């Protein structure tokens, strides 16, 4: 456990990161038609067939949530998103939206925000699991 996991969340830093990309991300999030056609383009979704792997779901419930709360998130909320953006997504960039929405950039920003607060994915075997 490093020091970063015990530090309080730096809301100002998150808000800086959000504002930098606000115009683009807000437009992308608002134009999602919630059609679910991006699902079959994600190989992880094809293997698990679980709505939690649908690219739009991952983006909306991570970055969308952070924007909705205007950056005022607590550590627990970031930890909840951890699974969606670090485990359910490998950022291979192959997800396809018929409307042209850039999903990988949204997940990448969510990851950057989480990482800046010390929330990041851990490979299972790195903690001694087989």
């Amino acid at each position: 456990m490093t020091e970063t996991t015990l530090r309080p969340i730096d809301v100002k830093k998150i808000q800086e990161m959000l504002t930098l990309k606000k115009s683009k991300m807000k437009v992308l999030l608002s134009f999602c038609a919630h059609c679910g056609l991006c699902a079959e383009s994600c190989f992880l979704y094809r293997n698990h067939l679980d709505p939690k792997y649908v690219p739009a779901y991952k983006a909306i419930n991570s970055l969308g949530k952070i924007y909705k709360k205007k950056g005022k998130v607590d550590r627990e909320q970031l930890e909840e998103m951890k699974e969606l953006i670090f485990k359910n997504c490998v950022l291979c960039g192959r997800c396809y939206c018929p409307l042209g929405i850039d999903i990988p950039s949204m997940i990448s920003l969510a990851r950057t925000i989480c990482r800046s607060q010390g929330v990041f994915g851990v490979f299972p075997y790195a903690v001694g699991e087989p």
Partner: protein
Amino acid sequence: MIIAKIKPLEEVQAMIKDFKRILNVGCAGCTAICLAGGQKEVETLNTKLAVSFKEEITSPLIEGFTVERQCEVQFLAELDPMVEDYDALLSMACGAGVQFLAERFPDMKVFPAVNTTFVGINRDIGWYEERCQCCGECVLAITGGICPVTMCAKVLFNGPCGGSQDGHCEVDKNIPCAWVNIYKRLKAQGRLEQILSVFPARDWKNQTQGTFVLEEYQDRYSYKDKEGSQK
């Protein structure tokens, strides 16, 4: 995947000691998975450097930032607003990432903090073995899945040399002879006659810097079709 190994601390220290503000750029791709250059490794290295510089008169300010992959433009672009605050960049990505980073910021001094070793497999946590040298002409179909370029010390293609003894290489008794293993594997699978196929002299096309564009995308990038044009 690409396996890298972190450089000795003294070597990294010597690279950056003359600079005042350094950004240590991590990579959440291959080097993170082989525990050499991910976010955790960036923080660890920064801590170690801070401790080792404490004894010096001038200790630089070292901060860290991890991007998804340093081999991709869209992720490197995240660094654009940050780099002007620093004198030098330390990169914990593989050689490709370090070079791409240096190319993107040609005015910045970029230093590698890891040694990129090979393309290999992860046998268990922390245990990596070389398996591929990216020769560009894979013959694993005929050798039963054992690579003669990587596993044979002499890179032989047509069977073992005279120095093979008791299944070991004459270069080092601890190295198994690749061709003995190939023989055993093919025999067990009942396709031993494949070992009789003779390989002609190789092209070794992968010994010069490679670049290629997939055929489906070639129209997207125009090209000069005069002879002797720049690659």
